């Protein structure tokens, strides 16, 4: 199914490979199950973009629209025994930049959608049936009736009784781990425990933490980093077979910024495995705007993988390149293989 996805992607964009990892220890073996991850988009209205003087806006919105329509086509043509699910990993609508002081305004999400109608219709369309996570820039949507099915985490596989091997978060939880270690214990229960959804009180606690995390930042000059994210050596040639291991970040060979959140994700997933009888081996996140696959391998031969899917805002730079490129990445997981692609206009 990876090949079919690649063909579809190549029909709408120039595709380069950011990273790939094929390993049976990923714990997602089904060859007829493809999960596609679209990271942070950070849409704001055009009026607000001008008013706010934001340096960064969503990259390649027309390409992203074409991508969503192509994925819809892929999904509608799948065989009956196949599974294709698209996830948007949070920070789809950037409420925090659209309307500081959100409590006084109730139409700001609608305003953003009004200005990006084609993209929103493509990505939220009934045929695509994409699932959405709440990010730290659009968390307030949990209070809106239209968004009550958006979630804080998903577990995979979800088509069998198999114990979950993969967890999907927005990723801001790992900021809280660093900044508010004393305040997150209750919330972690609701984020990790399967079959348990956070109630209004816990959601309120999360909202408070998110507001504390934002502090007084207005995100005018940047959201995650003014500098382009370093994504390593990007593979240009997509005609040959995708390598088993490409641009995988490890403790031995990578800089600390390429390993960000790896240890936190590993530690919390291991704890969740013990606490809730799970078998988590993979965490899929967005939030950092830094596309990469990073792995933690133990002496016993166990593998834990962090798939950070990147973003559609701010920039990245590949090894050996003199200029940066707009972040425009998606990731996919199927048949014990994870890939991250960088997209560009044709």
């Amino acid at each position, binding site marked *: 199914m990876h090949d079919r996805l690649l063909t579809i992607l190549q029909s709408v964009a120039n595709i380069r490979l950011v990273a790939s990892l094929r390993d049976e220890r990923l714990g997602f073996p089904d060859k007829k199950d493809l999960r596609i991850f679209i990271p942070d988009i950070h849409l704001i209205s055009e009026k607000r973009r001008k008013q706010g003087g934001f340096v960064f806006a969503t990259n390649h919105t027309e390409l992203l629209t074409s991508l969503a329509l192509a994925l819809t086509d892929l999904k509608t043509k799948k065989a009956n025994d196949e599974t294709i699910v698209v996830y948007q990993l949070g920070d789809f609508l950037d409420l925090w930049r659209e309307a500081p002081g959100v*409590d*006084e305004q*109730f*139409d700001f*999400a*609608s305003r953003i*959608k*009004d200005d990006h*109608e084609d993209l*929103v*219709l493509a990505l*939220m*369309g*009934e045929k695509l049936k994409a699932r959405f996570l709440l990010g730290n820039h659009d968390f307030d949507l949990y*209070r*809106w*009736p*239209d*968004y009550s099915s958006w979630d804080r985490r998903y577990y995979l596989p979800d088509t069998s009784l198999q114990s979950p091997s993969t967890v999907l978060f927005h990723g801001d939880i790992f900021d809280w781990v660093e900044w508010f270690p004393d305040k997150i214990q209750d919330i972690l229960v609701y984020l990790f425990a399967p079959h348990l959804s956070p109630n209004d009180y816990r959601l*309120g606690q999360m909202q408070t933490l998110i507001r504390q995390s934002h502090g007084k930042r207005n995100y005018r000059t940047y959201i995650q980093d003014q500098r382009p994210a370093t994504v390593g050596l990007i593979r240009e040639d997509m005609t040959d077979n995708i390598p088993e291991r490409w641009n995988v970040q490890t403790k031995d060979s990578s800089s600390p910024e390429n390993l960000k959140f790896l240890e936190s994700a590993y530690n919390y997933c291991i704890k969740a495995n013990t606490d809730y009888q799970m078998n988590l081996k993979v965490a899929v996140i967005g939030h950092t705007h830094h596309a990469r696959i990073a792995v933690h391998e133990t002496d016993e031969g166990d593998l834990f993988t962090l798939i950070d899917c990147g973003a559609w805002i701010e920039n990245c730079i590949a090894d050996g390149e003199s200029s940066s490129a707009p972040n425009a990445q998606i990731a996919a997981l199927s048949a014990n293989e994870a890939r991250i692609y960088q997209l560009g206009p044709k």
Partner: protein
Amino acid sequence: MKKVTFLLITILLLSNIGCSSVQVPYVAVREAKFRSERTQSERIKLPLTTESRKRLIDFLKAGGDTSRVGSEIADPEAERHYAQLLNMLSDARNLSLQDLTEKQTFKDWFPDIPIRQVIDAREEAPPIIDPVAVTDGKYWWIFYHRHKQLTELLVVKAIPHEIKR
């Protein structure tokens, strides 16, 4: 007396702090007999035509109760009261999304801030592009739009917030 006043002010302030959460406003589409359409396929297209305008006037004259249409006049003033609004809704030049939001073209009829959360239990899922709901006190006027042009209209009899005694 001063102490009592101070105490009351303090209690009021504290109670406001304690109740800082804000309700998200939304509008619910009512039962068939209290709306200008039975099914979504009958939704009134904009700009209004002679035919759709008459349909709307009949609904408003019946007091927003379709069971009375053609048999009773519940609101004899409706035709006169809404004439100018319906004239404006018949003219494509007044039908941009901004006419309802930023330009407030219809503020004489709809003085309050528009509400964008509309719950219609007939639908499979919430709307992707949010309609705009405004009220004149008697009705909710729910405008649907595409590419920032108002394209369709649903009028629903409003439920009074207060009962006068």
